[in-house]
């Protein structure tokens, strides 16, 4: 990625996302929205899928958005954005667009990206629309009250993957959405976390600039207080531990080359990573995990890190 911001001082100061929205106290996605809007800057249209962010930021007659913003439905934010991008392209060509080089940004949650919206995302990527698609991932359907999604991690409790005598939490592994996006050979895709704002901000700006070449994608890790069952003041701490334990590695796919970013770039050596338990123990959704189950998660995580390490050498 290009480094637009070296220190926190370089980060944009002007807020482009109004407070007074109805997100829960301590919401990880709120931190993401604040920084996405600040870094993207005013000359952009935002297409948002149905989800926690959408329903808490647009309670009629109010809106937290200071950008031109459109929400249509749950599974089509990428298709809507494709239409907006095409419109701006044609209207500019016909001299009917008075706002210059307006960018188009999708914001959608994990449900809207991994599951119901995957098809319209794939279509947009395949068609090479100049759109930045940003996924805020809180690992379940939180707006409807914490139901499992394709992004929910294995063994995690949700209201639809309860911990019972016969079945303990979610059965399947978390879907590798970045793998799916990279398979579309997009110019740029990256993971980011609300705990590492400088890294996230530089990636947002880089991804936005690369939309001149085609679609770009950001996977932003955004913990959820009621959904993951941790105290509301621990959101950033949980996100940081996700990175430091290697649960959520920070990396980018830049024109066909995968590169792990700090601190993840030092985590291929397992001893440099904090134990996974550090991340799990803060969260009630993992409170039921046995030693064996944790060991299984650790084994899978190690395998994933070997996979990333190999990819990085290609």
């Amino acid at each position, binding site marked *: 990625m290009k480094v637009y911001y070296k220190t926190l001082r370089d980060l944009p100061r002007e807020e482009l996302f109004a407070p007074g929205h109805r997100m829960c106290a301590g919401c990880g996605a709120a931190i993401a929205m604040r920084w996405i809007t600040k870094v993207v800057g005013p000359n952009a249209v935002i297409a948002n899928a149905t989800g926690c962010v959408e329903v808490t930021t647009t309670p009629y007659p109010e809106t937290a958005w200071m950008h*031109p913003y459109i929400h249509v439905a749950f599974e089509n934010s990428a298709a809507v954005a494709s239409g907006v991008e095409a*419109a701006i392209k044609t209207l500019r060509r016909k001299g009917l667009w008075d706002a210059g080089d307006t960018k188009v940004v999708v914001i959608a949650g994990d449900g809207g990206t991994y599951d119901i919206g995957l098809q*319209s995302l794939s279509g947009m990527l395949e068609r090479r629309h100049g759109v930045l698609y940003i996924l805020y991932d809180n690992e379940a359907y939180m707006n409807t009250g914490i139901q499992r999604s394709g992004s929910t991690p294995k063994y995690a409790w949700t209201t639809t993957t309860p911990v019972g005598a016969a079945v303990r939490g979610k059965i399947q592994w978390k879907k590798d959405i970045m793998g799916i996006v990279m398979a579309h050979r997009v110019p740029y895709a990256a993971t980011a976390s609300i705990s590492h704002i400088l890294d996230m901000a530089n990636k947002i700006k880089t991804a936005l600039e690369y939309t001149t070449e085609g679609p770009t994608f950001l996977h932003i890790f955004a913990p959820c207080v009621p959904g993951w069952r941790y105290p509301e003041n621990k959101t950033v701490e949980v996100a940081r531990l996700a990175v430091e334990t290697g649960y959520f590695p920070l990396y980018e796919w830049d024109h066909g080359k995968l590169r792990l970013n700090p601190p993840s770039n030092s985590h291929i050596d397992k001893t440099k990573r904090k134990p996974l338990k550090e991340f799990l123990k803060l969260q009630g959704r993992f409170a039921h995990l046995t030693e064996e189950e944790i060991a299984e998660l650790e084994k899978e995580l190690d395998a994933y890190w070997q996979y990333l390490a190999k990819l990085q050498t290609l």
Partner: protein
Amino acid sequence: MQIQKTRKIEALTSNYAVAYAVKAADVDVIAVYPITPQTTIVEKLSEFVANGELNAELIHVESEHSALSAVVGASAAGARVFTATSSQGLELAHEVLHIASGMRLPIVMAVPTRAVSAPISIHNDYGDVMNARDVGWVIYIAASAQEVYDTVIQAYRLAERALLPVIVAYDGFLMSHTVEPVELNDEEEVRKFLPRTPRPYTLNPRRPVTMGPLTSPDWYYEFKYQQVLALQEAYKIAKDVDAEYSRAFGRGYGVVESYRMEDADYAIVTYGGAAYGNAKAAADLARERGIAAGVVRIRLYRPFPTADVLKAISGVKALAVLDRAIMFGGPAEGPLYRDLAAAMYMSGVDKPAVNVIHGIGQRTMYVEDLYKIYTMLREGPRKEVVFMGVRI
């Protein structure tokens, strides 16, 4: 507006007529997914774009749900947009139909109609459009390729004035793939007829707005009532636009069309090219055989042209509504019959009216079949559903 100079008559299918109208309307964004019988529209549009004849972005979406979603986004950004689909595609896009009208976005969608699965059928009837008749879109049903061409152009003027999305429907295959003479307008004249009118709200960073908010019980009902008023208003706008079009290009259709109704005792009320055409031939046959027969065609189906259709049938003793769709489980299976029966009841008109269902899955509506409707009406008053043409 003087009648334009050169009269270009082309031999076109209704699908191609749509494409030429879209080209003339200087559309900006097209998003379409292929489906029989609509596909040749998008093929012709792709040629226009590839040859530089049409300055538009053509988005080859991955589904009809995304086709309508993309034109919603494009229209919200201020572009003039077009999409088209049929049958299963219209069903898949159904969720977004409500959203497009709820957001009051001008969109024009051509629908060469086709039966709805199951069982699957690629042939014509109106099951698809009739399943979208109450979603807040204006719906025209055209009866000839010429009318399809003219109506698509009128649809843009109405959509941008009423701030409502518009469907232009017509028979799949029986019109979409049938070559007919079509007089094309001079494209500059069409552009003058469709000036770029500013919209109250668009997605523009210089004037940021939020579209598609969450509404609580304190608000939702008011916006739905706004749509009720908008559709009522569209009835008048449709008539004005048709009159303006007729002055500009010499062709007009009204919202309801009558054939030999001046002295008719019995009428068939129907929609779409095949039903209307064959009904006209049946009326001629009936008159030869001593029955004062006439036909009324609904051109503007939504908003329902109550005043005009009641005026058209005022003189007859009895009528039959020829429906080309089955809406299961209602008091009568025909959608137009239900509309007309309600309209008659609400206006205190109590004429015998029978609901004839025919042409389902493109079952041929022979003129001799439709002639029997007139003899049936003459035999005596009745108020029932008759499934004609099906082996029972």
